[in-house]
Protein backbone atom coordinates (compact mmCIF):
# COMPACT_ATOMS: atom_id res chain seq x y z
CA UNK A 1 0.00 0.00 0.00
CA UNK A 2 2.90 2.29 -0.53
CA UNK A 3 0.71 3.28 -3.44
CA UNK A 4 -1.19 5.61 -1.11
CA UNK A 5 1.85 7.71 -0.29
CA UNK A 6 3.22 7.34 -3.80
CA UNK A 7 -0.06 8.53 -5.25
CA UNK A 8 -0.09 11.63 -3.08
CA UNK A 9 3.46 12.47 -4.07
CA UNK A 10 2.36 12.21 -7.70
CA UNK A 11 -0.15 15.02 -7.18
CA UNK A 12 2.12 17.38 -5.25
CA UNK A 13 4.14 20.23 -6.69
CA UNK A 14 7.56 19.10 -5.68
CA UNK A 15 9.19 22.40 -6.56
CA UNK A 16 7.38 23.96 -3.60
CA UNK A 17 9.03 23.83 -0.25
CA UNK A 18 8.38 20.53 1.49
CA UNK A 19 7.56 19.36 4.11
CA UNK A 20 4.60 21.67 3.96
CA UNK A 21 4.09 24.71 6.15
CA UNK A 22 1.44 23.21 8.44
CA UNK A 23 2.31 22.65 12.07
CA UNK A 24 3.07 19.17 13.38
CA UNK A 25 -0.16 17.20 13.61
CA UNK A 26 -2.29 19.76 11.75
CA UNK A 27 -5.15 17.96 10.06
CA UNK A 28 -4.97 20.05 6.90
CA UNK A 29 -2.39 17.64 5.49
CA UNK A 30 -4.78 14.73 6.05
CA UNK A 31 -7.53 16.64 4.22
CA UNK A 32 -5.13 17.27 1.34
CA UNK A 33 -4.34 13.55 1.17
CA UNK A 34 -8.02 12.66 1.32
CA UNK A 35 -8.85 15.13 -1.46
CA UNK A 36 -6.12 13.68 -3.66
CA UNK A 37 -7.28 10.11 -3.05
CA UNK A 38 -10.87 11.08 -3.84
CA UNK A 39 -9.97 12.89 -7.06
CA UNK A 40 -7.78 10.00 -8.15
CA UNK A 41 -10.37 7.40 -7.21
CA UNK A 42 -12.98 9.12 -9.38
CA UNK A 43 -10.56 9.28 -12.29
CA UNK A 44 -10.57 13.03 -12.91
CA UNK A 45 -7.66 14.43 -14.88
CA UNK A 46 -5.57 17.02 -13.05
CA UNK A 47 -6.42 19.66 -15.65
CA UNK A 48 -10.16 19.16 -15.17
CA UNK A 49 -9.96 20.22 -11.54
CA UNK A 50 -9.84 23.80 -10.32
CA UNK A 51 -8.92 24.23 -6.68
CA UNK A 52 -9.92 27.63 -5.34
CA UNK A 53 -8.69 28.55 -1.88
CA UNK A 54 -9.17 31.57 0.30
CA UNK A 55 -6.83 33.01 2.89
CA UNK A 56 -5.60 31.23 5.97
CA UNK A 57 -3.85 27.97 6.66
CA UNK A 58 -6.31 26.21 4.36
CA UNK A 59 -5.36 28.62 1.56
CA UNK A 60 -1.93 27.07 1.45
CA UNK A 61 -3.45 23.88 0.12
CA UNK A 62 -3.82 25.40 -3.33
CA UNK A 63 -0.09 26.00 -3.46
CA UNK A 64 0.96 22.42 -2.90
CA UNK A 65 -1.32 20.44 -5.17
CA UNK A 66 -0.89 20.13 -8.91
CA UNK A 67 -4.39 21.01 -10.17
CA UNK A 68 -5.42 24.31 -11.70
CA UNK A 69 -5.26 26.42 -8.58
CA UNK A 70 -6.38 29.90 -7.57
CA UNK A 71 -5.31 31.45 -4.29
CA UNK A 72 -7.84 34.19 -3.79
CA UNK A 73 -8.57 37.00 -1.37
CA UNK A 74 -9.95 36.50 2.10
CA UNK A 75 -13.50 35.16 2.12
CA UNK A 76 -13.96 35.57 -1.62
CA UNK A 77 -13.02 32.07 -2.75
CA UNK A 78 -16.68 31.29 -3.52
CA UNK A 79 -17.07 34.36 -5.72
CA UNK A 80 -14.04 33.43 -7.82
CA UNK A 81 -15.29 29.84 -7.98
CA UNK A 82 -18.77 30.99 -9.07
CA UNK A 83 -17.20 32.92 -11.93
CA UNK A 84 -15.05 29.97 -13.01
CA UNK A 85 -17.99 27.55 -12.91
CA UNK A 86 -20.32 29.81 -14.87
CA UNK A 87 -17.64 30.55 -17.47
CA UNK A 88 -16.70 26.91 -17.97
CA UNK A 89 -19.19 24.45 -16.44
CA UNK A 90 -17.12 21.50 -17.67
CA UNK A 91 -14.52 22.16 -14.97
CA UNK A 92 -14.83 20.52 -11.59
CA UNK A 93 -14.45 23.39 -9.15
CA UNK A 94 -13.39 22.62 -5.58
CA UNK A 95 -13.35 25.40 -2.99
CA UNK A 96 -11.23 25.03 0.12
CA UNK A 97 -12.03 27.48 2.91
CA UNK A 98 -11.28 27.79 6.56
CA UNK A 99 -13.94 28.40 9.17
CA UNK A 100 -13.10 32.10 9.43
CA UNK A 101 -12.99 32.39 5.66
CA UNK A 102 -16.32 30.65 5.17
CA UNK A 103 -18.38 31.85 8.10
CA UNK A 104 -17.25 35.37 8.92
CA UNK A 105 -15.84 37.45 6.07
CA UNK A 106 -17.19 35.07 3.45
CA UNK A 107 -20.41 34.19 5.27
CA UNK A 108 -22.68 36.04 2.92
CA UNK A 109 -21.06 34.48 -0.11
CA UNK A 110 -21.54 31.04 1.39
CA UNK A 111 -25.26 31.39 2.04
CA UNK A 112 -25.91 32.86 -1.40
CA UNK A 113 -23.81 30.28 -3.22
CA UNK A 114 -25.79 27.61 -1.36
CA UNK A 115 -29.06 29.35 -2.14
CA UNK A 116 -28.20 29.50 -5.84
CA UNK A 117 -27.19 25.84 -5.72
CA UNK A 118 -24.30 26.43 -8.08
CA UNK A 119 -22.27 23.31 -8.86
CA UNK A 120 -19.32 23.66 -6.51
CA UNK A 121 -17.71 21.29 -4.07
CA UNK A 122 -16.90 23.23 -0.92
CA UNK A 123 -14.62 21.89 1.79
CA UNK A 124 -14.79 23.96 4.97
CA UNK A 125 -11.85 23.11 7.18
CA UNK A 126 -13.13 23.91 10.65
CA UNK A 127 -10.40 24.23 13.24
CA UNK A 128 -12.38 26.55 15.54
CA UNK A 129 -9.80 29.34 15.45
CA UNK A 130 -8.04 31.86 13.22
CA UNK A 131 -4.80 29.90 13.20
CA UNK A 132 -2.55 31.78 10.80
CA UNK A 133 -3.22 35.28 12.10
CA UNK A 134 -2.39 34.55 15.70
CA UNK A 135 -5.19 32.60 17.33
CA UNK A 136 -8.14 34.99 17.51
CA UNK A 137 -11.46 33.28 18.19
CA UNK A 138 -13.55 32.60 15.14
CA UNK A 139 -17.31 32.31 14.55
CA UNK A 140 -17.06 28.57 15.11
CA UNK A 141 -15.07 28.66 18.36
CA UNK A 142 -17.21 26.93 20.97
CA UNK A 143 -18.49 28.98 23.90
CA UNK A 144 -15.83 29.28 26.57
CA UNK A 145 -12.88 28.95 24.17
CA UNK A 146 -9.71 30.51 25.48
CA UNK A 147 -7.90 32.27 22.66
CA UNK A 148 -5.60 35.22 22.01
CA UNK A 149 -8.59 37.58 21.92
CA UNK A 150 -10.61 35.85 24.63
CA UNK A 151 -8.18 35.07 27.45
CA UNK A 152 -11.03 34.49 29.93
CA UNK A 153 -13.18 32.40 27.61
CA UNK A 154 -15.33 33.74 24.83
CA UNK A 155 -19.01 34.37 25.45
CA UNK A 156 -20.51 34.04 21.99
CA UNK A 157 -22.39 31.10 20.65
CA UNK A 158 -20.72 29.26 17.76
CA UNK A 159 -22.05 28.86 14.26
CA UNK A 160 -22.99 25.37 13.13
CA UNK A 161 -21.70 25.22 9.57
CA UNK A 162 -23.84 22.22 8.64
CA UNK A 163 -27.06 23.81 9.92
CA UNK A 164 -26.18 27.00 8.10
CA UNK A 165 -25.62 25.21 4.79
CA UNK A 166 -28.79 23.13 5.13
CA UNK A 167 -30.84 26.21 5.96
CA UNK A 168 -29.34 28.09 3.01
CA UNK A 169 -30.40 25.42 0.54
CA UNK A 170 -27.26 23.44 -0.27
CA UNK A 171 -27.88 20.24 -2.19
CA UNK A 172 -25.45 17.97 -0.33
CA UNK A 173 -24.21 18.68 3.19
CA UNK A 174 -21.94 16.42 5.23
CA UNK A 175 -19.58 16.60 8.16
CA UNK A 176 -16.47 14.52 8.72
CA UNK A 177 -13.30 14.64 10.77
CA UNK A 178 -9.69 14.08 9.84
CA UNK A 179 -9.53 11.17 12.26
CA UNK A 180 -12.16 9.29 10.26
CA UNK A 181 -10.08 9.46 7.10
CA UNK A 182 -11.71 6.59 5.20
CA UNK A 183 -15.15 8.06 5.86
CA UNK A 184 -13.82 11.46 4.80
CA UNK A 185 -12.66 9.97 1.48
CA UNK A 186 -16.21 8.76 0.92
CA UNK A 187 -17.78 12.11 1.82
CA UNK A 188 -15.45 14.07 -0.45
CA UNK A 189 -15.93 11.59 -3.29
CA UNK A 190 -19.72 11.89 -2.95
CA UNK A 191 -19.48 15.69 -2.82
CA UNK A 192 -17.38 15.68 -6.00
CA UNK A 193 -19.78 13.50 -7.92
CA UNK A 194 -23.12 14.99 -6.99
CA UNK A 195 -24.66 17.93 -8.84
CA UNK A 196 -25.35 21.28 -7.23
CA UNK A 197 -23.77 22.95 -4.24
CA UNK A 198 -22.04 20.32 -2.11
CA UNK A 199 -20.51 21.25 1.21
CA UNK A 200 -18.39 19.08 3.50
CA UNK A 201 -17.44 20.46 6.89
CA UNK A 202 -14.23 18.86 8.07
CA UNK A 203 -13.25 19.06 11.72
CA UNK A 204 -9.50 19.43 11.88
CA UNK A 205 -7.39 20.16 14.95
CA UNK A 206 -5.27 23.27 15.44
CA UNK A 207 -3.06 22.45 18.38
CA UNK A 208 -0.73 25.41 18.05
CA UNK A 209 -3.38 28.11 18.46
CA UNK A 210 -6.44 26.32 19.85
CA UNK A 211 -5.38 23.10 21.57
CA UNK A 212 -2.60 24.46 23.74
CA UNK A 213 -4.87 27.09 25.28
CA UNK A 214 -7.78 24.72 25.78
CA UNK A 215 -6.33 21.88 27.85
CA UNK A 216 -5.11 19.64 25.07
CA UNK A 217 -1.60 18.74 26.12
CA UNK A 218 -0.54 17.25 22.79
CA UNK A 219 -2.01 17.22 19.32
CA UNK A 220 -2.75 13.52 19.75
CA UNK A 221 -5.13 14.48 22.58
CA UNK A 222 -7.16 16.45 20.05
CA UNK A 223 -7.46 13.41 17.80
CA UNK A 224 -8.49 11.35 20.83
CA UNK A 225 -11.09 14.01 21.59
CA UNK A 226 -12.54 13.59 18.10
CA UNK A 227 -12.60 9.85 18.64
CA UNK A 228 -14.57 10.19 21.89
CA UNK A 229 -16.84 13.09 21.01
CA UNK A 230 -18.01 12.40 17.48
CA UNK A 231 -20.73 9.92 16.65
CA UNK A 232 -22.22 8.80 13.36
CA UNK A 233 -25.42 10.58 12.47
CA UNK A 234 -27.47 7.36 12.34
CA UNK A 235 -26.50 6.57 15.91
CA UNK A 236 -26.87 10.17 17.02
CA UNK A 237 -30.47 10.25 15.85
CA UNK A 238 -31.28 7.18 17.93
CA UNK A 239 -29.83 8.69 21.10
CA UNK A 240 -31.86 10.37 23.81
CA UNK A 241 -31.35 14.11 24.22
CA UNK A 242 -29.52 13.71 27.51
CA UNK A 243 -26.88 11.46 25.93
CA UNK A 244 -26.25 13.86 23.09
CA UNK A 245 -24.65 16.65 25.09
CA UNK A 246 -21.13 17.39 23.96
CA UNK A 247 -21.32 15.00 21.02
CA UNK A 248 -20.93 16.07 17.42
CA UNK A 249 -22.73 14.05 14.74
CA UNK A 250 -20.79 13.19 11.59
CA UNK A 251 -22.20 11.88 8.35
CA UNK A 252 -24.42 13.04 5.52
CA UNK A 253 -27.03 15.58 6.64
CA UNK A 254 -28.66 16.32 3.34
CA UNK A 255 -28.49 14.62 -0.03
CA UNK A 256 -30.98 16.01 -2.51
CA UNK A 257 -28.99 15.80 -5.72
CA UNK A 258 -30.63 18.90 -7.23
CA UNK A 259 -29.13 20.06 -10.52
CA UNK A 260 -26.88 23.06 -10.32
CA UNK A 261 -27.46 26.64 -11.45
CA UNK A 262 -24.95 26.36 -14.31
CA UNK A 263 -26.95 23.48 -15.84
CA UNK A 264 -30.25 25.31 -15.53
CA UNK A 265 -28.65 28.41 -16.99
CA UNK A 266 -27.45 26.42 -20.02
CA UNK A 267 -30.92 24.89 -20.41
CA UNK A 268 -32.54 28.33 -20.37
CA UNK A 269 -30.04 29.66 -22.91
CA UNK A 270 -30.64 26.74 -25.27
CA UNK A 271 -34.38 27.11 -24.93
CA UNK A 272 -34.28 30.81 -25.73
CA UNK A 273 -31.96 30.24 -28.67
CA UNK A 274 -34.36 27.65 -30.09
CA UNK A 275 -37.21 30.09 -29.74
CA UNK A 276 -35.14 32.74 -31.46
CA UNK A 277 -35.75 35.24 -28.70
CA UNK A 278 -32.08 35.85 -28.23
CA UNK A 279 -29.14 35.75 -30.57
CA UNK A 280 -26.55 33.02 -30.30
CA UNK A 281 -23.13 34.20 -29.29
CA UNK A 282 -21.73 32.96 -32.61
CA UNK A 283 -23.86 35.42 -34.61
Amino acid at each position, binding site marked *: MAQVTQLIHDYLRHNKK*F*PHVYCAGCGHGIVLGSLIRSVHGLGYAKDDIVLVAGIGCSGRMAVYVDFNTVHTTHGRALTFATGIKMANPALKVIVVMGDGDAMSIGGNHLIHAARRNIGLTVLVLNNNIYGMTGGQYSPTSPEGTVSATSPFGQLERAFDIVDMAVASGASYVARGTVLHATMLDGLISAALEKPGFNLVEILTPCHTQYGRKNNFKTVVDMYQWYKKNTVKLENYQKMADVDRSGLTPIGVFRDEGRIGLEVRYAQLRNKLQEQGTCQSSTN
Partner: protein
Amino acid sequence: MSKKKGQAKVTIYQDWCKGCGICAAFCPAGVFAMRSDGKSHVVRESECVNCGFCELHCPDFAVSVTPRETSRRKTDGLFDPRAEVPESPCSSDPGPEEHVGTPNREEDHGHKKA
Protein backbone atom coordinates in the same frame (compact mmCIF):
# COMPACT_ATOMS: atom_id res chain seq x y z
CA MET B 1 -9.24 -8.82 6.62
CA SER B 2 -6.90 -11.12 8.34
CA LYS B 3 -4.72 -9.53 10.95
CA LYS B 4 -1.51 -11.40 10.24
CA LYS B 5 1.67 -9.86 11.48
CA GLY B 6 4.72 -9.07 9.43
CA GLN B 7 2.79 -8.32 6.28
CA ALA B 8 4.36 -5.07 5.35
CA LYS B 9 7.48 -3.00 5.17
CA VAL B 10 7.09 0.37 6.88
CA THR B 11 9.21 3.33 5.84
CA ILE B 12 9.34 6.84 7.28
CA TYR B 13 10.78 9.74 5.30
CA GLN B 14 12.65 11.28 8.19
CA ASP B 15 13.09 14.59 6.40
CA TRP B 16 9.34 15.06 6.07
CA CYS B 17 8.35 13.79 9.51
CA LYS B 18 7.45 16.58 11.94
CA GLY B 19 7.06 14.30 14.92
CA CYS B 20 3.38 14.90 15.66
CA GLY B 21 3.10 11.39 17.10
CA ILE B 22 -0.20 10.42 15.46
CA CYS B 23 1.26 7.22 13.99
CA ALA B 24 2.82 6.21 17.30
CA ALA B 25 -0.34 6.97 19.28
CA PHE B 26 -2.86 5.22 17.04
CA CYS B 27 -0.91 2.28 15.54
CA PRO B 28 -2.75 -0.84 16.74
CA ALA B 29 0.45 -2.88 16.67
CA GLY B 30 2.87 -0.41 18.26
CA VAL B 31 5.13 -0.30 15.23
CA PHE B 32 6.29 3.27 15.80
CA ALA B 33 8.10 4.99 18.64
CA MET B 34 8.99 8.63 19.15
CA ARG B 35 12.67 9.16 19.83
CA SER B 36 14.68 12.01 21.26
CA ASP B 37 15.28 13.51 17.82
CA GLY B 38 11.59 14.42 17.87
CA LYS B 39 10.67 12.11 15.03
CA SER B 40 8.87 8.85 14.66
CA HIS B 41 10.88 5.69 14.08
CA VAL B 42 9.91 2.20 13.00
CA VAL B 43 10.79 -0.04 15.92
CA ARG B 44 8.64 -3.16 15.56
CA GLU B 45 8.03 -3.62 11.86
CA SER B 46 7.36 -7.34 12.31
CA GLU B 47 4.19 -6.51 14.27
CA CYS B 48 2.63 -4.49 11.41
CA VAL B 49 -0.80 -5.81 10.41
CA ASN B 50 -0.97 -3.63 7.29
CA CYS B 51 -4.11 -1.77 8.39
CA GLY B 52 -3.02 1.40 6.63
CA PHE B 53 -4.01 3.83 9.40
CA CYS B 54 -0.62 5.53 9.47
CA GLU B 55 -0.54 6.14 5.73
CA LEU B 56 -4.00 7.69 5.71
CA HIS B 57 -3.40 9.81 8.80
CA CYS B 58 0.14 11.08 8.39
CA PRO B 59 -0.41 14.80 7.73
CA ASP B 60 3.03 15.10 6.18
CA PHE B 61 2.84 12.11 3.81
CA ALA B 62 5.94 10.75 5.51
CA VAL B 63 4.87 7.15 6.16
CA SER B 64 4.76 4.50 3.50
CA VAL B 65 3.61 0.93 4.04
CA THR B 66 4.54 -1.60 1.37
CA PRO B 67 2.71 -4.91 1.67
CA ARG B 68 4.78 -8.03 1.25
CA GLU B 69 1.88 -9.91 -0.33
CA THR B 70 -1.40 -9.00 -1.95
CA SER B 71 -3.48 -7.19 0.62
CA ARG B 72 -7.18 -6.66 0.90
CA ARG B 73 -8.07 -3.23 2.17
CA LYS B 74 -11.04 -0.97 1.84
CA THR B 75 -8.95 1.54 -0.07
CA ASP B 76 -7.52 -0.92 -2.57
CA GLY B 77 -10.23 -0.24 -5.13
CA LEU B 78 -9.14 3.38 -5.32
CA PHE B 79 -5.96 2.52 -7.08
CA ASP B 80 -7.19 0.25 -9.83
CA PRO B 81 -6.72 2.75 -12.68
CA ARG B 82 -2.98 2.73 -12.22
CA ALA B 83 -2.50 -0.67 -10.68
CA GLU B 84 -1.12 -2.09 -13.89
CA VAL B 85 1.50 0.58 -14.35
CA PRO B 86 4.68 -1.19 -13.29
CA GLU B 87 6.71 1.95 -12.81
CA SER B 88 5.73 4.21 -9.98
CA PRO B 89 4.50 7.65 -11.07
CA CYS B 90 7.18 9.51 -9.19
CA SER B 91 10.10 7.35 -10.22
CA SER B 92 11.04 9.62 -13.07
CA ASP B 93 10.71 12.69 -10.88
CA PRO B 94 13.25 13.44 -8.25
CA GLY B 95 12.08 11.80 -5.05
CA PRO B 96 10.83 13.78 -2.11
CA GLU B 97 14.10 13.37 -0.25
CA GLU B 98 16.05 15.22 -2.89
CA HIS B 99 13.90 18.30 -2.51
CA VAL B 100 14.26 18.55 1.20
CA GLY B 101 16.54 21.33 2.25
CA THR B 102 16.61 22.86 -1.20
CA PRO B 103 13.69 25.26 -1.08
CA ASN B 104 13.16 26.99 -4.35
CA ARG B 105 12.54 30.42 -2.97
CA GLU B 106 12.18 32.12 -6.33
CA GLU B 107 9.28 29.87 -7.22
CA ASP B 108 7.65 30.23 -3.87
CA HIS B 109 6.32 33.66 -4.84
CA GLY B 110 6.26 35.06 -1.38
CA HIS B 111 4.06 32.32 0.02
CA LYS B 112 6.68 31.54 2.55
CA LYS B 113 5.28 32.05 5.99
CA ALA B 114 6.65 35.09 7.68
